[in-house]
């Protein structure tokens, strides 16, 4: 009776996951969908709590749940909107770490116990540990990279993707050996395997650079799902299996969609397309000059133009400049200037990152243009202001086959009558490559913090 009830609850939970994600994929029902999925999770957890168990274990479970819930809640409600991608990355890593703990503990049981595991069981246990481990340390490194705490050059070895390939083959061979000879597993071997797995997770993400981090997070997200599914096989638990596979599949397709948005293959991303090889592009010649624009000039120009396009990038997020952006927007609109926003699919650190930030300050949906719409409208745009974006407006992607981002669709801002780049310094963008746009004849630079510059611009426009 109890078992039937638990299984029924799992069924309802799985249904809530599927319907929840489905509703999450449309703007009007998204919030509702997220809550539905959360309720599904709640039902599944409560049902699990009701399942029979040893005496005295409940206090451990409830205590741990309380601690985890408090930490998760605090982190989710306290973090700045701009740091959202990093937070998602960490959460994902912790899910992976949880799978590592499960896989490790279950394997440890096999070592200590009298019954030795069959090949199938061994495979499931090792996969849980392995996939979870890669998701864990990979996500942590992705977090560090996103947060700018780790720079690519410092952790990438020469021929890193080759090393990773050999490393992976080695680990697969290790797993195959343990599956065929389960009796060979000792505590020492288990620890060795775990450590190697965790190192591999770091190594896997290490060569993947800069602008590709969103893709990696999505991929690691699907890994966490798969590790949860593998853990579901250990416990013969349907909801873990279904939920995990579901996330694994949707994460994979999301990863592919993101790769498509950048016109690159997943393979290309994984071997680290943005490596040092792109350094020798033609923008390196040193005699080019940039032209600076003064604030009053820019303010006048914008105030009397017909159409202004804003290209936001991660710089806008870092500087928390979205409110200033909105203020400028309102002032200009009051003077019949049409203001639009050109959102590149990979602007910011995650697809949709910019949309979230701009929505936060009530900038209406219909002002946000996607890549194709924006490129069509840029031709009759008077002033483009680029706020903390760089690689997504780099003309080298179209005309310099030597550039490492060659082939990625970009916003063709140089088609507008005037381009103004708000930038802190001449430092290259996140992908670490030169941007010939800054030396373009129609480009002027406005150096300074994005928020600061925008606020000054707002003040100047008010004076008009």
């Amino acid at each position, binding site marked *: 009776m109890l078992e039937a009830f638990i299984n029924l609850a799992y069924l309802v939970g799985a249904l809530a996951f599927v319907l929840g994600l489905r509703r999450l*994929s449309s703007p009007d029902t998204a919030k509702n969908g*997220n809550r539905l999925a959360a309720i599904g999770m709640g039902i599944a957890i409560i049902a699990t*709590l009701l399942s029979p168990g040893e005496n005295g274990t409940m206090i451990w479970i409830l205590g741990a749940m309380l601690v985890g*819930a408090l930490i998760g809640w605090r982190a989710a409600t306290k973090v700045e909107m701009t740091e959202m991608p990093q937070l998602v990355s960490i959460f994902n890593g912790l*899910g992976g770490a949880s799978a590592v703990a499960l896989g490790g503990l279950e394997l440890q049981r096999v070592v200590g116990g009298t019954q030795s595991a069959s090949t199938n069981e061994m495979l499931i246990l090792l996969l849980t540990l392995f996939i979870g481990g890669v998701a864990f340390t990979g996500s942590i490194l992705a977090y560090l990279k996103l947060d700018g705490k780790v720079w690519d050059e410092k952790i990438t070895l020469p021929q890193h993707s080759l090393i990773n390939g050999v490393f992976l083959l080695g680990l697969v061979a290790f797993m195959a050996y343990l599956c065929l000879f389960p009796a060979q597993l000792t505590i020492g071997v288990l620890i060795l395997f775990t450590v190697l797995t965790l190192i591999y997770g770091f190594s896997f993400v290490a060569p993947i650079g800069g602008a590709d981090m969103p893709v990696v997070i999505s991929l690691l997200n699907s890994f966490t799902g798969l590790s949860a599914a593998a853990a579901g096989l250990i416990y013969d638990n349907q909801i873990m299996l279904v939920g995990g596979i579901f*996330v694994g599949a949707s994460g994979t*397709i999301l990863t592919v969609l993101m790769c498509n948005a950048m016109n690159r293959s997943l393979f290309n991303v994984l071997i680290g397309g943005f490596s040092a090889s792109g350094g020798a592009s033609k923008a390196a010649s040193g005699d080019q000059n940039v032209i600076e624009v003064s604030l009053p000039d820019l303010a006048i120009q914008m105030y009397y133009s017909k159409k202004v396009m804003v290209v936001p990038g991660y710089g806008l997020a870092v500087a928390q400049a979205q409110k200033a952006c909105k203020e400028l927007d309102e002032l200009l609109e009051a003077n019949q200037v049409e203001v639009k926003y050109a959102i590149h699919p990979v602007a910011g650190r995650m697809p949709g990152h910019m949309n979230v930030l701009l929505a936060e300050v009530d900038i209406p949906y219909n002002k946000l243009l996607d890549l194709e719409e924006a490129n069509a409208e840029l031709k009759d745009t008077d002033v483009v202001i680029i706020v903390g974006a760089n690689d997504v407006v780099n003309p080298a992607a179209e005309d310099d086959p030597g550039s490492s981002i060659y082939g990625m669709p970009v916003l063709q801002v140089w088609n507008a009558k005037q381009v103004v780049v708000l930038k802190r310094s001449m430092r290259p963008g996140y992908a670490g490559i030169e941007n010939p746009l800054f030396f373009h004849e129609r480009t002027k630079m406005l150096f300074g913090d994005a928020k600061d510059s925008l606020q000054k611009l707002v003040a100047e426009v008010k004076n008009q």
Partner: protein
Amino acid sequence: MDQLIAFFTEHLLMLYLLLFTIILGFEIIAKVPTVLHTPLMSGANAISGVVIIGGILLVKQAAADDWLLLVGGAVAIVLGMINVVGGFAVTDRMLDMFKKKKS
């Protein structure tokens, strides 16, 4: 080979389940507008915290003096719970931003 066939026959229903779940996952995401990619990734991430159920089951089976399982399982539960609660809460916050646009 025999082992494979046996495995296939034994787990036929599960293989169907896996296949359809994968296709369902693909289909649902394929139609999503770019603006919702981040909340969607975040929501899916929260669902992957379902691994916490494994943690609960592990601790439930642990003997009262099996400290390794109790402590290790509790750690797995804490980590999974952070993933679940944090994931859903942060997605909710993100989606709050979208709701305002209508008013």
